[in-house]
């Protein structure tokens, strides 16, 4: 079957089409795969909530009003109210910014550290490879969530430390993917050609290898975004990291959990739904991102 895909109708390859703009390309990808379009739409919604959330919500997410505590979803309170009478819809929307920022910051951090370490390991090999490989193995040897708990507990209970902990537990994932991708390209013809052009090894790494593994890394980032959000919420859920009354999905689920037994399901349900939607969105986004950033697909 592999043989066949190589021999697709060749006129396409030989009458090389003019390159299309990024926007037109994005439009095509969305048209080709509606699921990707849906994921991008969801992502836009999350982004909107993260940037403008606090100004869009109908109530102050921190203002309590005990006279309306634990009311079910209604026209006035779409997602109902919690035990202190705070509007859950406002809190869910307002929490987006914090959860999203934690995820973006930790993914950016691990992309820089893990990605670079992995690329170096794959490209230079030798002792660099050994050191990076053993660090990744060591991290993998722990149950990852427990490791994250330990790091936050040890470093102190702050948002910065949640970001660091989330980055550390994702390190092996990034280092391994980057290593494998760099390793297969180490002896590629274009790398050898660049060597002949007088590029130093470091320049080869940064100009030849790194740009070519960006598509894979972009997919990886999209996938770990969801995981990072889950991890941050999980830490808050067990009481580490973000502290009440700050609106945050994990805390809100934790607070609402005790009310499920007594029938007030909406307190935990809606923040949980927001969490699930965000993770789902980032996982779907992975494929779309790959199609978008890969130049080979752009014709």
């Amino acid at each position, binding site marked *: *079957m*592999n*043989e*066949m*895909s190589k*021999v*697709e*109708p*060749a*006129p*396409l*390859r*030989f009458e*090389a*089409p*003019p*390159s299309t703009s990024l926007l037109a390309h994005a439009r*095509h990808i969305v048209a080709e795969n509606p699921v990707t379009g849906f994921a991008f739409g969801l992502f836009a919604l999350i982004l909107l909530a993260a940037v403008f959330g606090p100004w869009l919500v109908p109530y102050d997410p921190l203002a309590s009003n005990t006279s309306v505590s634990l009311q079910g979803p209604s026209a006035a309170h779409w997602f109902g109210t919690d035990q202190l009478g705070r509007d859950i819809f406002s809190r869910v929307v307002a929490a987006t910014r914090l959860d999203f920022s934690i995820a973006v910051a930790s993914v950016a951090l691990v992309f820089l550290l893990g990605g670079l370490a992995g690329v170096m390991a794959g490209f230079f090999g030798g002792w660099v490879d050994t050191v990076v490989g053993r660090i990744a193995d060591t991290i993998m040897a722990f149950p990852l969530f427990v490791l994250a708990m330990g790091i936050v507990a040890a470093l102190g209970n702050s948002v910065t430390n949640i970001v660091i902990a989330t980055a550390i537990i994702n390190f092996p994932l990034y280092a391994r993917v980057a290593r494998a991708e760099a390793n297969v390209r180490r002896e*590629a*013809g*274009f790398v*050898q*050609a*660049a*060597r*002949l*052009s*007088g*590029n*130093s*090894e470091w*320049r080869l790494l940064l100009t*030849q290898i790194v*740009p*070519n593994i960006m598509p894979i890394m972009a997919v990886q980032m999209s996938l770990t975004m969801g995981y990072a959000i889950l991890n941050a919420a999980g830490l808050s859920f067990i009481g580490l990291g973000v502290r009440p009354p700050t609106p945050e999905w994990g805390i809100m689920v934790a607070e609402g959990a005790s009310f499920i037994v007594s029938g007030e399901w909406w307190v935990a349900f809606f923040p949980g739904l927001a969490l699930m939607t965000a993770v789902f969105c980032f996982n779907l986004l992975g494929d779309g991102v790959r199609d978008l950033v890969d*130049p*080979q697909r752009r*014709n």
Partner: protein
Amino acid sequence: MAAAPLLDIRNLTVEFATRRGTVQAVKAIDVSVGKGETVAIVGESGSGKSVTSYAVVRILDRAGRVAEGSIAFSGIDLVSATEAQMRDLRGREISMIFQNPRAALNPIRKVGKQIEDVLVQHVQATRATAREKAIEALEKVRIARPAERYDAYPFELSGGMCQRIVIALALACQPQLLIADEPTTGLDVTTQKAVMDLIVELTRERGMSTILITHDLGLAAAYCDKVVVMEKGRVVETASAAEIFHNPQHPYTRKLMKATPRVGMSLRDLLPEDQAKKTTSTPPVEAASAKPPATSAGRAPLLVVENLVKEYPRPAKGSFLAKLTGQAEPDQPAFRAVDGIGFEVRRGETLGLVGESGCGKSTTSMMVNRLLDSTSGRIVFDGQDIGSIPAKQFAASPFRRRIQMVFQDPTDSLNPRFTAERAIIDPILRMGQVRGRAALRARCEELAQLVGLPVELIDRFPHQLSGGQKARVGIARAIALDPDLVILDEPTAALDVSVQAVVLNLLEELKQRLGMSYVFVSHDLNVVRLLCDRVIVMRTGQIVEQGTAEEVLGAPRAEYTKELLTAIPHPPS
């Protein structure tokens, strides 16, 4: 032929749905294959030759469909047959051999078991008798010690051996029709000869029909009764092999014939008449950077290689546990990929480095261009021992710009994220004197013109260029800094013959104009004959024979060179 043909393709049109509308890969073609007949379908990439065969066995990918026409196989209409019927036909009645034998075999199953699977699947054997029959099948494809090879995994066998296993698989159920899709591309000439001889012999023996799909007109003419020439999805000519070779009718067939290198031709002969005239009539433009034409005689050689050796350590034998406890047997002597060779390249000369895969020619060229460190020996370039400069530090050496290379695979050697312009100016950015956006652009355009790449294409990415255009980008990059020595590592192996003809002429012209020397690494003796002044024949890391091209290829002294020369497919006379 009076009898109805075994396979009758009529008015076949195959369409592919793509982003830019429907593309017709095959346009209304007629091909018929009689019983016991060997038919070649010849064409360059994109001619639709493979698509035709996929349509016959109905393995077109999802985007493709038969739009029109009929395919009849001994009375059965294959276009409307159900998938279940097709499954039954494939393997039992129609078999296929693919280009890359290693990819066609399951890498983690013993080859004998794989043959058994096919036999059992098509009820040619039961589990009890399968082993015996499988060994018998291995014997038939001339595999020495078949009982032993039964237990081998594909990675333990050579490419030619793997292709024989694939043939054994394809013939295991005695099909009536064998479709061989470029069965010998990527194999050495001597292996190619062995494999083709085997296919022809076995199919004759059993009265089978064969379709050989190939880009090599010489191969087709040498082994087939009938040749079908395809161009851009259409059949342009169908004739007997001898007729195609001696009296081609269609202009495209003539062009293809002309572009195929043969004995007694010159480089110019490869080009179509109008093009050849054009290139000869244009007076050579004197590039500002051109060096005085080199007179090779009497000058000190540009490159002298003395007693060059490259060794690779072999893994220690013994079990894993033995290695851990230090009880492993002493290491075997290291493997010598290049075993003490010496040669010279004179100024303005083209030296051919010839041999089959694994002979050490690529290793040698990598050491000479300083991408690989040698184990011992000297590489003296223009009076300096550059072999003593480690490969890792050679990028910073002033010699780097003087030794460049053109790679085998034009696609693989271009960074998919760099435009053609960025690729060409890369060496200038690192080592050249040209500075500034406008000056670099001007130099790039000059280089593009020099290699015949349309200037408007230099802003494109590699995947937007054709194979020939990519090859030109690679050549432009190699000559960007006016090197003294360019190593050409099978620069045309991945190209169609007509493109190869143009690229070879371009290389020769550039050499004259810029006064460079070439080391031309190749397995294709016909091409070497055209381009090279002197030739070195290598085998297992050693030089078997060296001398001028006429001497070595005209009157070879070494047995091995003679063997190589006779393995080249000879068309019917």
